[in-house]
């Protein structure tokens, strides 16, 4: 019997979808191992109010560490606290979200605990009492099945892959006083600049509108922004390597092996021919739509739905149709 701990990421006091997914995955693994799922929540005073939300997705206990200095993430503050809680809790498995924060935090915790970490995992189950862990390599050109021979087993799970499932548990708050020593920090956050109101990272989005060289010029991007806005919330812009290399779009938007690997619910590839390293980065998307004037473009081999045609005619029409659809409700 082993309990499973999920690290519950919050941003500005809000529980992230990735935290619900981590708790939900922890609950499933704990059930398989005959244990309970716990969640660990760190934040500014008042963050305990978010604990019931974690209980709703399966956390029997929510360990809450509140401190003024924990409102925003600092690796030197967070890593020792998380390592401490894992150690004292005697957990069999620890689940992190493979978000930017999770990818920064989990390796430090692993090193502090002297146990390996499997990151960006896309399958996590219990099979006959043993963990079944699979993660993509080469940006999804292959999948590695892993044997983890250390306790606790640390994993980070790829956002949007594991569905959060409501499985009401007690969500009992276990408030503890985290040890925080800013004098010992080697990293200090000076400022955070938002990319813009409501701007969403491509790795977190549930829908991605990606543009490639077929867009012809960076000045044509309002076309994709229009489509993004018509669809509504949870939509991010993505880009192919070609347009990032050309300096048309920021690297943060790049999807593919030298950018971000994504698994949204819906992926629009607009004017993207589908180079192998791009396909590797987005082929696990649930539904793929491609618009390209070349009927032989490789993108059509992975697309669920394709339109062969001029994107400068197709995209405005698509934006209008979706607007009309949304207006109808």
């Amino acid at each position, binding site marked *: 019997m082993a309990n499973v701990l999920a690290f519950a990421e919050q941003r500005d006091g809000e529980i992230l979808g990735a935290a619900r997914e981590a708790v939900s995955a922890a609950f499933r693994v704990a059930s398989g191992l005959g244990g309970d799922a716990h969640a660990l929540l760190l934040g500014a005073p008042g963050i305990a109010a978010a604990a019931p939300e974690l209980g709703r997705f399966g956390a029997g206990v929510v360990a809450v560490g509140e401190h003024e200095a924990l409102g925003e993430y600092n690796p030197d503050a967070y890593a020792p606290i998380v390592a401490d809680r894992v150690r004292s809790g005697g957990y069999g498995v620890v689940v992190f979200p493979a978000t930017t924060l999770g990818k920064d935090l989990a390796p430090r915790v692993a090193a502090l605990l002297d146990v390996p970490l499997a990151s960006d995992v896309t399958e996590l189950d219990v099979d006959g009492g043993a963990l079944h862990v699979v993660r993509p390599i080469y940006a999804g050109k292959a999948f590695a099945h892993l044997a983890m021979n250390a306790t606790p087993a640390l994993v980070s799970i790829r956002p949007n892959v594991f569905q959060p499932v409501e499985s009401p548990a007690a969500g009992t708050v276990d408030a503890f006083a985290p040890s925080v020593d800013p004098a010992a920090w080697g990293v200090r956050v000076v400022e955070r600049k938002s990319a813009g109101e409501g701007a969403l990272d491509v790795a977190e989005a549930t829908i991605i509108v990606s543009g490639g060289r077929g867009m012809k010029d960076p000045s044509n991007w309002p076309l994709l922004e229009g489509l993004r806005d018509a669809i509504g919330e949870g939509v991010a812009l993505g880009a192919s390597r070609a347009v990032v290399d050309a300096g048309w779009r920021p*690297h943060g938007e790049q999807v593919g092996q030298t950018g971000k690997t994504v698994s949204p619910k819906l992926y629009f590839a607009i004017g993207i021919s589908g180079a192998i390293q791009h396909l590797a980065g987005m082929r696990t998307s649930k539904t793929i739509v491609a618009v390209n004037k070349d009927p032989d473009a490789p993108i059509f081999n992975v697309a669920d739905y394709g339109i062969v045609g001029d994107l400068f005619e197709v995209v405005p029409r698509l934006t209008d149709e979706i607007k009309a659809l949304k207006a109808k409700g």
Partner: protein
Amino acid sequence: MDVIVCVKRVPDTETRLRIGEAGTAIDPAGVKFIMSPYDEFAVEAALRTREGAGSGEVSLLSYGDTSAQETLRAGLAMGADRGVLLTGEPGMDCLATAKTLAAELEGAQAPLVLFGVKAADDDQQQVGPMVATLLGRPCATGVASFEVGDGKVTCHREVEGGVEVVDVTLPAVLTITKGAFEPRYASLKGIMAAKKKPLEQKEASAEAARLNVTKLSYPPERAAGKIVGEGADAVPELVRLLREEAHAL
């Protein structure tokens, strides 16, 4: 200012890969190998740091089989001063890899140790922050640009939905993303000079791997999609399919 950059040899990202006979690794036959692109950004960042400071040495460190010499030579051709190759077989257990690298870096005087934010093969994003933790050095990940100041380095990190500016106390470990660091091409002169630069090779301290690959599999094939139609007239049907068949809108 002295900078150490850790670099990894990986298959070219444009390469199609096949799983090898043993089923636990790719078949290297016919695969072109390159320096991991993020490590190239880190080498570029190191060279600019040295150039900005007006003095110092850029050292490269790699852990891999002897063919990684080629990767180190590529970095030397870009302008790095010397290379060290720890020969061994790094696997999926990044903590084991980090321990091997940390054992070599322990006691290193260089104020900056740089990594690519991730390796383009395994994409684990672990080794940099693990090495930092093992060495007790502070670390910033996903750094798109940085300026070295007095006893600290100010880093601009790519984070979800924006940019974060952090001050990191030196000596530090940074993992570098593309950002400002478009890598330079090696000049012919650089390639010639690289042949004469010192490249030390020694056996890596082996660490037991506790995370192992039991098998590799190919991604599930996507079911054949359909061409909905041609041009803007196909859009209403596409929207209907997205709504009624895919339940995606």
